[in-house]
């Protein structure tokens, strides 16, 4: 199949269908309502389920119920909607259900705005809901990568029995780019009979399944949390994904940036290179687990004077960059949070302001 021009939000909806996810529950919110509009047409065509819930709170639990039966299910929303779903995300994480969430982030806090933002980094990677849990968080930098991440998200969610979040931004959702859908089949999990409430009649063993999150006994709750932690630790070992840019150069500054912001940084790096000023970038593709070691290694390289986190927020990822660099180099932040995206020139000026040797 060749490339077609598609809006990010629609491509995300199509990617889920191609991944074999035929169940979608959602509530409209700008800037991602096109996913629901697209799937309200497409799901009936493929015999799937489309339901517009009464609120994001309810949608979160529709996902819980559907995933609890062992069925592939996903939703899309944007920042304020994800806040409302965060209650369910905590329960879904606790009950270890595979659900895929797409957050096309808009500016906050509160109603904020409807323009692109990366201000939900903390919410996505550090919690959002209550209790000790983590989502596996992936951040696409193009419509094509959004498609690939959505398709990868379902088997990952099922491998870990853990929710996966695709953290996009308004630009990824609203932009049109050429995309190609691969025809590869994504196999369904085979172990759901061990845990899903899909009805005892459908299973070989004659025992009922429970999907729950309550552990009144202190020892049992401790064991549950230790098992969850072991899962997150395994993600840190096996699922870190990142891309490097100009990393083999004798760079004086290391940029860390993801999503839409990283594309601007790439242009800035090219422009600086043309002037004879070398900079490099690590672009986390997974925000949890975070590429701690690659950033530490690159920052430690001789000649690297500064590490700069560029973000469409007031400085959230920079905290993970700091803990990666461990004080080996000075770490700076530069960003915007109103919905405007820094220009390559602004990135160049910021980099130069942080680097002493020019």
């Amino acid at each position, binding site marked *: 199949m060749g490339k077609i021009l598609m809006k990010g939000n629609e491509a995300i909806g199509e990617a889920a269908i191609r991944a074999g996810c035929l*169940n979608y*529950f959602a509530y409209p919110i700008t800037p991602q309502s096109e996913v629901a509009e697209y799937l309200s047409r497409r799901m009936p065509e493929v015999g799937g*389920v489309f*339901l517009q*819930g*009464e*609120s994001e*709170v*309810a*949608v*979160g*639990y*529709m*996902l*819980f*119920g*559907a*995933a*609890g*039966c062992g*069925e592939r*299910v996903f939703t899309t929303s944007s920042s304020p909607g994800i806040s409302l779903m965060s*209650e*369910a995300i905590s*329960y879904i994480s606790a*009950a270890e259900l595979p659900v895929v969430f797409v957050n096309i982030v808009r500016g906050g806090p509160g109603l904020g705005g409807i323009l692109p933002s990366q201000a939900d980094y903390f919410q996505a990677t550090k919690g959002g809901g209550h209790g000790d849990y983590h989502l596996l968080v992936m951040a696409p930098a193009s419509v094509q990568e959004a498609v690939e991440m959505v398709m990868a998200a379902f088997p990952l969610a099922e491998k870990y029995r853990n929710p996966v979040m695709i953290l996009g931004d308004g630009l990824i959702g609203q932009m049109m780019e050429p995309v190609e859908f691969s025809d590869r089949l994504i196999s369904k999990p085979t172990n759901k009979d061990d845990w899903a*409430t*899909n*009805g*005892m*009649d*459908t299973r070989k063993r004659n025992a*009922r*399944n*429970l*999907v*729950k*999150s*309550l552990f009144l006994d202190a020892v049992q709750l401790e064991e549950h949390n230790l098992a969850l932690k072991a899962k997150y630790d395994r993600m840190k070992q096996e699922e870190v994904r990142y891309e490097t840019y100009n990393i083999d150069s004798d760079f004086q500054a290391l940029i860390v940036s993801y999503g839409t912001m990283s594309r601007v940084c790439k242009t800035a790096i090219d422009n600086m290179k043309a002037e004879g000023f070398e900079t490099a970038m690590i672009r986390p593709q997974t925000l949890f687990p975070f590429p701690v070691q690659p950033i530490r290694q690159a920052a430690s390289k001789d000649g690297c004077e500064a590490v700069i986190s560029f973000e469409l927020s007031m400085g959230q990822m920079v905290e993970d960059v700091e803990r990666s660099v461990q004080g080996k180099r000075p770490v700076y932040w530069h960003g915007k949070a109103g919905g405007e995206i820094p220009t390559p020139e602004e990135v160049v000026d910021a980099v130069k302001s942080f680097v002493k040797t020019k």
Partner: protein
Amino acid sequence: MAKTYRKPEALADQPTHYCPGCTHGVIHRLLAEVIDELGIRGRTVGIAPVGCAVLAYNYFTFDFQEAAHGRAPAMATGIKRVRPDLMVFTYQGDGDLASIGMAEIIHAANRGEKFTTIFVNNTVYGMTGGQMAPTTLPGQRTTTSPGGRNVQDVGMPVKIAELLSALQTPAYITRQTVLKPKYIVRAKKAIKKAFQYQMDGRCFSLVEFVSTCPTNWGKTPVEAIQWAEENMLPYYPLGEFKLPD
């Protein structure tokens, strides 16, 4: 010797944590009997609420999911939409359904989701220690209405069966009780009817139960039953409020 009374297969063989005089136990048994009689244990999924019945899944022998406070109807929606062949019911109290979960129950009912809700109304938040609920009767003392429910301040109690039967879509809305044997027989018929409508692919069904909470009411089991009959039944009349068209 013939055994004429036995534990339903759908009911687990273990004592419950419910207080003496609480009606949850009787309602659990009726549910289990209906599930046995309809032969649906192997394709039934129950949803336990937050509240006294949070551990209800310990007392049944089929698949269960455990909900957050008030969200059971949204979970039932998710299950039934992706697996219409399953028989699904939510089991909810009045703090759960009539307060924090009001949005979820109204919209699930109005969409005509094809599951059944068992709604146990005992006028208080039981598990958290007897606080005032939307269903607490006027003047009734609770731990958060120590002077009695002041309707000038917090309004009149919500009548869920009447409220939901104002919607056009739901199939079957009824209010029952298990305070006396004669009511129990009728209540079981109502549960069976609700499940039968679900099996037939009809819309949403709800059976409300006028119930007791001797512990939080500060009464003996017998006093609690008398109080419920004298005070709850006049305000929460029994009957069928909506039948399928």
